[in-house]
């Protein structure tokens, strides 16, 4: 297994063997620990000292299912802290098959230069000029790449927002159909890629690497057990394939925790119109797909292909968090408009969540009315056009709030929260506050704990411990490259043991991991250490004031945890 270092300043490429200390790492574990080891914590995130790391999961490239996530890590220009955002599609498999554990992009290309980083299936790595693709949006870009280099390539790329180094810029990944609808959306990693002068990472599929599994028989056996658990689970085996992540719209609204109209209400008036069930009916009539395989080696099929009224492709992989940010938060209850906004964000290369929340903050400030569909579309377009407002929206919801002098910005460490209001699902507020990533839906989301009736979402008992436990587990799971939609279903002790067994069958007895929680804790410690060195204190582990002051209907409750209680989550 190897690490490829690309110095954009000198345009040189070096290949290294993976150091012994990193052998059990992959994905988020690898990006975060490498960043803590190598990136000066106080560096300019958009300067040459920052490093952009693409890491395959520990198990990527093996025969295990749903293992194709690629973690992208750097110091975030949005949060100012450590950042990992992972993306599905086909890149994880393509890199894993080549035995590439990480690509570390260092330095900064000479001003005005734009490059492709190309890896062919023999593992040859080269930097190619990409000047002619400047300002190109992602759908056109990927099509042009396929025309030139063939469709058997996986692409991670930026749009105009990344080139402009906007703090909400995403990195878009091609799916199994070659569409750049998968996103490493959070934290402005597209801006880091743009600052380096890298327009796209292009990897030819079909590489061959000697199978690195140490105990193939045990690996095969544990894979079978895991597959049975996942396919028989009602959520991953039935709900996700039929409704996707949008299946959360009904439960979260029913629990009064769907932040709407810039987090003024916990139930969105028009939520049934933007539910998964409504999307399924609309798409059934138009010939769209609710059961779509977006990522390599997927056995869940939670993605979708959303068609317009004429039966033409409108967007792909329309997810719950996007439906919330572009729907509930903005007061838009028209599915086609939400789908259009999703497409625009993917095409321009911005995070749908931070962008939707930024639009909601602008609407809350009186800039436009809630529910104004055309205004929302124009605002997103303004990011690409670089208008005065577009330049503000592109820097994230906190920048929008500052511009309008509006303190009602639902963000932590400058990154917007996700689709669970911390006044009605209070444990999610603990995760938003304490995650080194800032407001986030993947690092320790308690929604399943509430719907499984393990904890009451409105009562304090057990929330801090559960947030901590989930943050540890998710960090360890994000080390493997496994999709959250799969590992979220590994709730029983037997399921967790099978997951650990498959990891240890891969690693062999010499490097076996004793427990997943311990690995997760190690990753969290390194991430929080980086943030401390970057200047973060406990005071950064707090929610915005309005969550403590404004009761959220319908429960009319506020976020109940004091600073001291929040600080009990981590003692490091």
């Amino acid at each position, binding site marked *: 297994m190897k690490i490829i270092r690309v110095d954009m300043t000198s345009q040189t490429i070096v290949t290294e063997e993976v150091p012994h200390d990193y052998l059990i790492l992959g994905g988020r574990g690898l990006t975060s620990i490498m960043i803590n080891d190598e990136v000066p914590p106080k560096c300019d995130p958009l300067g040459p000292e920052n490093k952009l790391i693409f890491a395959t999961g520990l198990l990527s490239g093996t025969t295990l299912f749903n293992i194709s996530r690629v973690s992208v890590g750097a110091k975030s220009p949005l949060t100012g802290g450590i950042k990992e955002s992972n993306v599905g599609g086909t890149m994880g498999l393509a890199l894993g098959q080549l035995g590439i554990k990480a690509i570390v992009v260092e330095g900064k290309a000479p001003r005005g230069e734009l490059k492709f980083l190309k890896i062919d299936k023999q593992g040859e790595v080269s930097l190619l000029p990409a000047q002619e693709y400047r300002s190109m949006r992602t759908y056109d870009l990927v099509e042009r790449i396929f025309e030139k280099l063939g469709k058997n390539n996986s692409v991670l790329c930026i749009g105009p927002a990344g080139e402009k180094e906007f703090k909400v810029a995403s990195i878009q990944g091609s799916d199994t159909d070659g569409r750049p609808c998968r996103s490493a959306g959070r934290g402005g990693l597209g801006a880091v890629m743009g600052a380096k002068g890298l327009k796209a990472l292009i990897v030819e599929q079909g590489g061959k690497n000697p199978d690195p599994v140490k105990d193939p028989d045990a690996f095969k056996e544990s894979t079978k057990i895991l597959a049975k658990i996942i396919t028989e689970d009602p959520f991953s085996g039935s709900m996700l394939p039929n409704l996707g992540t949008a*299946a959360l719209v*009904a439960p979260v609204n*029913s629990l*009064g925790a769907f932040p709407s109209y810039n987090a003024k209400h916990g139930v969105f008036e028009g939520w049934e119109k933007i539910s998964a069930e409504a999307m399924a009916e609309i798409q059934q009539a138009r010939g769209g797909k609710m059961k779509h395989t977006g990522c390599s080696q997927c056995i869940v099929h939670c993605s979708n292909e959303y068609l317009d009224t004429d039966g033409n492709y409108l967007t792909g992989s329309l997810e719950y968090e996007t439906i919330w940010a572009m729907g509930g938060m903005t007061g838009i209850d028209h599915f086609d408009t939400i789908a259009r906004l999703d497409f625009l964000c993917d095409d321009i290369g911005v995070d749908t969540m931070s962008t939707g929340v930024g639009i909601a903050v602008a609407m809350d400030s009186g800039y436009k009315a809630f529910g104004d569909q055309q205004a929302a579309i124009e605002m997103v377009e303004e990011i690409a056009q670089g208008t005065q407002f577009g330049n503000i929206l592109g820097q994230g919801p906190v920048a929008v709030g500052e511009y309008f002098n509006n303190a009602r910005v639902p963000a932590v460490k400058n990154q917007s929260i996700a689709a669970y209001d911390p006044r*009605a699902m209070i444990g999610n507020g603990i995760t938003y506050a304490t995650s080194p990533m800032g407001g986030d839906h993947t690092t320790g989301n308690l*929604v*399943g704990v509430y719907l*499984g009736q393990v904890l*009451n979402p409105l009562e304090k008992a057990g929330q801090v411990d559960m947030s901590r436990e989930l943050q540890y587990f998710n960090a360890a799971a994000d080390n493997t490259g496994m999709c959250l939609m799969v590992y979220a279903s590994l709730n029983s002790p037997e399921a967790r043991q099978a997951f650990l067994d498959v990891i240890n069958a891969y690693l062999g007895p010499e490097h076996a991991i004793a427990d997943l929680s311990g690995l997760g804790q190690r990753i969290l410690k390194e991430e929080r250490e980086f943030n401390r060195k970057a200047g973060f204190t406990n005071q950064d582990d707090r929610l915005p004031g309005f969550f403590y002051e404004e009761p959220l209907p319908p429960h009319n409750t506020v976020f109940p945890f004091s600073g001291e209680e929040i600080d009990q989550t981590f003692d490091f």
Partner: protein
Amino acid sequence: MKVGVKLFGALPAIYGGSQHQRELEFDLPDGARVQDLIDLLNIHDLRHVVITRQGRILQAGDELKDGDFLTMFQPVYGG
């Protein structure tokens, strides 16, 4: 008493025989509890179904009231 219910996720196909937009209405005796509704719908395992009223999850022993509107869906883990 009358109780309205909307089903989501895979539940309409399993229990309701209806699309989610149609609200189902049940006649239940006064004093009926959630368990009575569960029996009526032939739901065998409450762990696979979440029932809410006014933003709160109901338990099998909770009493229902005339005019209640309930939503029913399956546990979802998040994403």
